[in-house]
């Protein structure tokens, strides 16, 4: 009897785990050839947010791949800002996120918003990686040193030193209006972000 129960429990755990860790689905662009490192399915979230909707966005200044330093406060009073943290260069889902934003410039403009792409990679890595995406219209910032300091400030630095796949919408007054710390294995649907920007109007 005991044995039967054990078998049942093992079966149930097996089945539940199959649901808890579904195979990661993504479509890799041929643009990256064989250069995308397979990371497998990761723990969906691995950090604790330190900010919430309604807070003033923590200020930061980071170097960008174009050589200029970009500060959050330079957009205050001028533009809404979307921060797009992606975990790492040369990984599957990240490589197919910013190229989509790259053709959505008109929609960002429509909401008077700019986009800042951020990873914890260093500038040369970001330069090489984003070159595969075509010419990006938005700044790409490196939160490499002190390592992941900005990601940490927002509470999206994972325990292995990469950031979450997270989106923050910050209005012209510098207030956080939307946060999506997304399952790291999945790309956030564009309509969710645009829906958040629509609400700023």
């Amino acid at each position: 009897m005991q044995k039967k129960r054990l078998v049942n429990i093992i079966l149930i755990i097996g089945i539940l785990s199959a649901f808890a860790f579904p195979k990661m689905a993504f479509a890799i662009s041929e643009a990256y050839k064989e250069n995308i490192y397979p990371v497998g399915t990761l723990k969906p979230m691995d950090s604790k947010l330190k900010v919430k909707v309604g807070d003033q966005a923590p200020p930061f200044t980071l170097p960008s791949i174009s050589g200029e330093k970009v500060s959050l406060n330079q957009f205050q009073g001028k533009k809404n800002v979307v921060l797009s943290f992606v975990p790492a260069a040369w990984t599957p889902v990240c490589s197919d996120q910013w190229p989509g934003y790259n053709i959505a410039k008109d929609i960002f403009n429509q909401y008077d918003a700019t986009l800042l792409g951020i990873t914890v990679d260093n500038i040369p890595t970001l330069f090489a990686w984003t070159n595969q995406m075509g010419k990006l219209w938005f700044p790409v910032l490196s939160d490499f040193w002190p390592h992941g300091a900005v990601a940490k400030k927002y509470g999206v630095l994972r325990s292995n030193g990469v950031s979450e796949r997270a989106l923050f919408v910050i209005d012209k007054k510098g207030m956080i209006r939307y946060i999506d710390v997304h399952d790291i294995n999945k790309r956030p649907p564009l309509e969710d972000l645009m829906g958040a920007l629509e609400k700023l109007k």
Partner: protein
Amino acid sequence: MKKILISSVVVALFFSILVFHASAANKPPQKGEALPTINLPVPKNPDERSYLGLSGSGLFKIPQIKAKAVIVEIFSMYCPYCQKDAPGVNQLYRLIENNADIKDKVKLIGIGAGNSAYEVEVFKKTYNIPFPLFPDKEFTIHKACGEVRTPYFMVIKINEDGTHQIVHTQLGDYPGAESFLELVLKTSGLK
């Protein structure tokens, strides 16, 4: 009795998972094979419906398209090469539509791997894409097609008796509209 019930539920769940996994292919569709199961919604847009020779609503399968050959592009709005190739693929559509001999024989559709309807619409609008595009938000079709990289092109030959086979597949490497049309016509026996 209760134990039997629990065991049955467990076994049923287990088999349903096996079936679910079986629907994901290990490799992309190959030349000579039939297509994997791909169900697409009949377009709401009457022009697109008429282009594909479909009527009504609900779902359809690619071989039901009224044509001798169908070109399928699996793309993603997030894919840089799909973006780069988009004007050239539009040109392919125009070459076909402007040629009275093949206009009714060759049709072109796109399937957006992992793209929502909104994302497909952004892609369509950005590149003024004149042929029907279908979202595959949950990667269902992408999985059935062996999780191909994008863009992935397939040419499907539809026979008189309603059977079909894949006569050409190609990952990226889009050679331009003229060369690709030539290849489509040759492989599908239209030339």
